[in-house]
């Protein structure tokens, strides 16, 4: 009878882990799932399997998933400014559209990392591993992104909706040519 309750708890935890919106919560639900399943093994009389499941399922894979999520979330933005001297002096306080872009990315569970670069945009595109490269000229703002990145569409939609006065052009590069990460 007891194992029936825990088996139903297993089904519920598995479906809750599938249905969560945030990946971090799904990882925690999976850890709870392995703990309950190790208890079910114990009820069935297999303590050896229960120990292995408890350690591997709820310690090692949970920490591994969390580390992987952390690595996946870093979103590096290169910012190159080739406008006039007046604009260059204003570099200390970042332009308002970058601030709102960062707030948008934080809301989507990413961790934006802004890198100011003094090099021309061609060397950045050729050498660095970027998620977004922003080139600020006198009139226009050119944004280079990777075509396969699924965040790019949301970023474009957001920028066009909120900063339509800024002449923003978005260019999708092919994967592999200039972005290996």
């Amino acid at each position: 009878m007891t194992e029936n309750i825990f088996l139903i708890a297993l089904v519920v935890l598995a479906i809750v882990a599938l249905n969560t919106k945030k990946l971090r919560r799904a990882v925690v639900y999976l850890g709870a799932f392995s703990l309950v399943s190790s208890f079910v093994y114990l009820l069935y009389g297999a303590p050896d399997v229960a120990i292995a499941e408890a350690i591997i399922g709820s310690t090692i894979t949970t920490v591994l998933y969390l580390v992987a999520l952390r690595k996946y979330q870093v979103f590096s933005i290169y910012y190159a400014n080739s406008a006039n001297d007046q604009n260059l002096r204003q570099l200390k306080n970042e332009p308002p559209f970058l601030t709102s872009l960062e707030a948008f990315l934080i809301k989507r569970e990413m961790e934006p990392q802004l890198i100011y670069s003094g090099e021309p945009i061609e060397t950045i595109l050729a050498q660095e591993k970027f998620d977004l490269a922003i080139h600020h000229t006198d009139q226009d703002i050119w944004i280079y992104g990777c075509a396969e990145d699924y965040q790019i569409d949301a970023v474009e939609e957001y920028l066009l909706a909120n900063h339509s006065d800024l002449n923003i052009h978005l260019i999708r590069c092919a994967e592999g040519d200039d972005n290996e990460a």
Partner: protein
Amino acid sequence: MIDRSEIISRMTGLLYPFILLFGFYIILNGHASPGGGFQGGAVLAAVFITRYLVEPDRCIRLKTLKTAEKVLFICIILYPAFFLFSTTANHSELTNLTYLIAMNFLIGLKVCSGFTIIFFRFAFYEGGI
């Protein structure tokens, strides 16, 4: 980790001698109680993994662990080959218990080094930061 929690790092630092002790207990009592080489080795690997949460530095030598794993694997092949497959008769109690404890210990160390290598490969050498 950029923003480490003080409470977690202190508590894990306090806990990991006990986790280490528990891992060796599981390995060395594998012939008499539930547990054994694989489970105890996974507990020992969990010690290194929680150590990564406390202070993520690169002072673990993966190359040494890699050679250690290969040497332990050769030992795991050789010991049963000379002990079990040489005769068909039953051994005495003392030699049997030595064989079981030594094999559990070898398997535990090998599994520990294997899991540690896999985890630190993913943590330090893969993508991102």
